[in-house]
């Protein structure tokens, strides 16, 4: 009797263990699937480390701001459009076009025939506030690295303003685009289902083998950080003083 009960007990315990192990293995499998590709946070940390070590670089900045009524936040009513080019060597930033030097919080600019503090002129204050050092932006992104995730590679260059330079949508262009889209839709409908299936399989294979699949990282900043950055932008007086 005792032998029978011990045997049945050991059997149930072993079954339970097997179930638990299987469950863990499944969970582990899901984790492996989730962690497909390099860890975005780790890659960001390594990248920032290498960036800091590089010590010198060239930077081109394009800043576009205004109002948007779109979900993708593209500017539809442009108010600010600035472009800067600079060389950075250690903490020193040189903006040749603006005839200015910056060292983080302070700077000097050649205005009206004399070297002056960067904060003494509205124009120079604008780029001091509107154009933060890349290391500052990377530092902020790094602080929120836990939200980092891989995003799809964008093939087309990003047009920051909707409809071109002045922020107004070119109606002719948009009409042409719509026509093209309609044509593509019609073509898609006429093609057979097997072709569509093949396309999706090919796309999946492409993302698996694409070396650029892990090239773009997105980091979401907390609202406090966003507000701090927004106050900096407002203090640049780019929307006008007051």
């Amino acid at each position, binding site marked *: 009797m005792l032998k029978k009960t011990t045997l049945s007990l050991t059997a149930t315990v072993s079954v339970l263990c097997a179930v638990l192990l299987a469950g863990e293995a499944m969970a582990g499998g899901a984790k492996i699937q989730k962690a497909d590709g390099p860890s975005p946070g780790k890659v960001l940390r390594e990248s920032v480390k290498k960036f800091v070590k590089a010590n010198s670089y060239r930077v081109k900045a394009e800043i576009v701001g205004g109002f948007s009524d779109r979900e993708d936040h593209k500017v539809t009513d442009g108010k600010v459009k600035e472009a800067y080019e600079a060389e950075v060597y250690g903490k020193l930033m040189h903006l040749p076009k603006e005839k200015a030097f910056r060292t983080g919080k302070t700077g000097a600019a050649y205005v009206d025939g004399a070297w002056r503090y960067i904060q003494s002129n509205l124009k120079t204050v604008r780029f001091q506030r509107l154009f933060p050092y890349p290391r500052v932006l990377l530092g902020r992104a790094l602080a929120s690295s836990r939200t980092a995730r891989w995003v799809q590679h964008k093939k087309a260059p990003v047009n920051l303003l909707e409809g071109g330079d002045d922020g107004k949508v070119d109606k002719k262009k948009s009409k042409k685009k719509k026509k093209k889209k309609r044509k593509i839709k019609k073509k898609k409908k006429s093609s057979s289902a097997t072709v569509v299936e093949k396309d999706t399989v090919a796309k999946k294979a492409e993302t698996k083998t694409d070396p650029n699949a892990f090239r773009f990282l997105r980091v979401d900043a907390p609202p406090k950080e*966003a507000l701090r950055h927004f106050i900096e932008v407002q203090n640049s007086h780019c929307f006008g003083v007051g």
Partner: protein
Amino acid sequence: MSRLDRSLTNSYYEIEIDPETQLPVSINTVLIAAIKGESEAKGKKIVGGRHVAFHFKYTLSDFGKVKPPSVPKEARKLLARG
């Protein structure tokens, strides 16, 4: 800008990292703020309606190749004082 809703601001960074050099080659920062009574939001995220948007697109290159710039004396004085 007095109608800005400062309690509803979002921002995110899109960073392009060169897989070969592991260096960041572009940083695209998007900064958005809601306008009272005009923006649409889901929780703390602005999803549409009229809102303020700023895009900062940085392109980085020539890592380690830039030589130290020559700073004029007067500018150097100002930089040292600041």
